[in-house]
């Protein structure tokens, strides 16, 4: 199977504080997202400064990275919700084209 035979999809990556993870998951669920990957305790440098990612006894203070892949028609609602969230809360999102081999998993 060549790359061009794969099905085009939209990939959304979101980095938010641990306390905002439930909101993002709720937005995913409301948009009909069928699955996502969550990487907790990520570290990095942003315009708010450095964010430590290896906190032993605090899972809320560290950042989390959530990744999901959705068909084109669902990305609009997700982006609209996240933009509204980021008007008030810290966080970033990245939207990019991607391709998948089993599109039925993402619909």
């Amino acid at each position, binding site marked *: 199977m060549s790359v061009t035979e794969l099905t085009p999809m939209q990939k959304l990556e979101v980095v938010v504080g641990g306390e905002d993870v439930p*909101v993002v998951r709720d937005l995913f669920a409301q948009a009909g997202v069928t699955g996502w990957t969550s990487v907790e305790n990520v570290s990095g440098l942003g315009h708010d400064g450095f964010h430590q990612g290896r906190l032993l006894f605090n899972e809320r203070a560290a950042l989390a990275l959530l990744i999901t892949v959705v068909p084109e028609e669902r990305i*609009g609602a997700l982006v*609209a919700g996240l933009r509204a969230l980021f008007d008030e809360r810290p966080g970033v999102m990245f939207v990019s084209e991607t391709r998948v081999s089993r599109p039925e998993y993402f619909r």
Partner: protein
Amino acid sequence: MTAIAPPQPLELRATIRAEVAAASRVVAPLWPIGTFIAVNPLGGLQASSFEEAVRTARRDLGARGYPSLREARAGHASGAVTDAQLADALAEAVDGLDDLPPVAGVPAARLLLADLLHAPPAPGPERLQTVAARWDAVLGTTIAGQVDELVAAWCAAFTDEGVAGWGIPRDPGGLYATFRVLAGDDSRVGRLAGPGVRDKLRALPDDPAAAIVAALERLGVGAAQRGDELRAQLLRQPGWAGYLRWRSDWAPADSTSPPADLTDLLAVRLTCEALGVRAARDRAAVAATGLPGSRRVASAGADPNARLAAACDTLGIDGDALTADDRARALALLARLGEDDRGAIWLAARERAYRDDLLAALDRAPVAARARGEGRPAAQLVCCIDVRSEGLRRRLEALGDYETLGFAGFFAVAIRFRGLGAAAPAALCPVLLRPAVDIEERPAAGGEAAAAEALDRRSGELAFAEAFHHAKSGLASPFALAEAGGLLAGPLAVLRTFVTPSRSRRPGAWPATTVTATADEEGDPGFTTAEQVRFAHAALTMMGLTGPFARLVVLCAHGSHTRNNPYAAALDCGACGGQRGGPNARVAAAILNREPVRAALAGRGTVIPDDTWFVAAEHDTTSDAVTMLDRELVPAGHREELSRLEADLARAGLALARERAARLPGGGPAAARGRDWAQVRPEWGLAGNAAFIAGPRSMTRGLDLGCRTFLHSYRAEADPDGSALETILTAPLVVAQWINAQYYFSSVDPELFGAGDKTLHNVTGTVGVVQGGGGDLRVGLPWQSVAVGDRLQHEPLRLLAVVQAPLARIDEIVARNQVLRELFGGGWVSLAAREHDTSPWFRRDRDGRWSHHRSKEAAA
């Protein structure tokens, strides 16, 4: 210019959900009362400075964020705050104070000090208004109040979880869906919405976010005003909003209950407001002409002329004789200090006084007490950092060669624990963590028959209690119950009110039990050895317990024992999710007694001698008695030492109980207060908390810190990479700050941030308490937890963190952790530190600059 296309329905709904989530930051999550967790009521505003957050709370919620002028001035009158400390706080708050021109020959600083000491207070603040509240002002209606009452009743019914005799049939779609289906039968909704209520409800959108959009449109709220309106709506009911926020953001995943979140709550609220406003306008024949009145009712400051007159009186100036220039200059000067500024200055002055006293005391820590000796102590006692442990540690150390340490009371084991016969497991760990494993309490070997008998007995008692409860809430059964049991129940209630039982009521002998800390191949849940080694190493390093080890090391958890007290969990261990910490101590002791764990720890440089035994215990903070747990596991060769230690702990506990009872109104034996079902103040809990100290015990040993300090053991030399300090500052300190903020705000605004008078509380379901017959859930601590009569027992101060560690290490840790940048940079917590025992103290300002702290003596 291209017109922006209106958002599609799906996008708009997602936008609304995100806006609701953002708006929800104005309310703090509210844990169910059975697992009460102290939180910062303004935690959602923590990215702002403390002062800005308080300003927002004043403007939006109508809340007070500072101690009242009356209390602040009383502190000054009593000498708790000196003139110099007040003047220093004023100089720090007003830039260039010394350069400001005098008024009638009086320096600006003196005029402002006179204002702080004698000027009248400002009237109370107002709050953000919902649309219905604005219409109420125009139409003379009470729609907003009716909606509050209605929505509170629906929330209580929906979240009841089977406690009520007659529950409502909940729609799987959630709170809003249930409301939409059933509200047509609610006469209160009918009165609010007017004729045709069923048709109006049927016409509502299915989706709660879409219902919010529809209601806002009917109320005339545009996109630009949406955020304010959503916040105003939530702030009408911060209790229920906080509880639903907990359900969404903090509760363990629950797939069995229909959903109820803040979007549901707002959909119901706004729908009711829209229906009510429409009906009221129809009745009054008022045409839709946009939104009436003002979104915010501005808070008027104290009358400037009255302030000036008071200051002039104090200074002996004839106010009427002031020149126009002097008068204008004086009024301009006073205008520089708004009501919040005056509160902030008083607070800073009082905190300065406490800090100066504490650091001076630490400098004076008795040298003899510091030098406990180099050999093995008679025993080591590791207590929770809870402020009440400070008293127990101090009292025990005075009785012998004991070493005590402080550590978060879950002892680094985050567990979901199911006690013997318990219906459901409980998460025993800080709420910042998710429990790592399930641990089950089982009968000890050979005790299965006794356990079965005890469980049967308990089942019988529970069945009786349940039958009694159902009989009370049935349709006809209450009459029969009153006939059959009334004669006995009435006198019993009177007896229980006036006569405290001489001992705790126990359901017969409880069997010996065991907890299994280690996962095994037979499917017993627990930690793997690798996890045990990781947590044991982290715990011992964090508290600096790397040797020498005593033959007995007690891991002393804590919990309270009170009766008829919905707020019992507020007295339990915050590090154990508002539960008693005994199970954590048992699991941690079992781990540290395992040979494979010790072998691995030795490989990492921590050698625990073969004759060292870890034993679990629990400190009852109501009676200050300490009970050993799993005593039967203690090796025979250690029993005699254990008995001696128990005797000393009993003496220490008794002395502490007397000390703490003296601070309680009415006195009396502490244990009896816990057994008294009519006692509204069984103990003071964490009232008085003011500082968090991370350092070796040599900093504080021999000092009486009055049960006001969280004490976390830390030895910088045992933590070369700073990871232990980073964990201490990002977890125990954060939890301590939540507790501190809960007590602070419950004291400065007991109506909005506190739970009010405990004697008027009614428990609703398993959720929380309401005052009287209904209404919003009460948040925070009851007045009886922080005050007696109109006198505060808890002194509201922001947390002072005191750390003994290299300053550069602290800076590095703060720089890489946003939570610390916010806490220290925003003034939520202040920080003082020194490098080691004999070095001077430094204070870290909000911008991260260290300055040398002048001791009181030096300042004098």
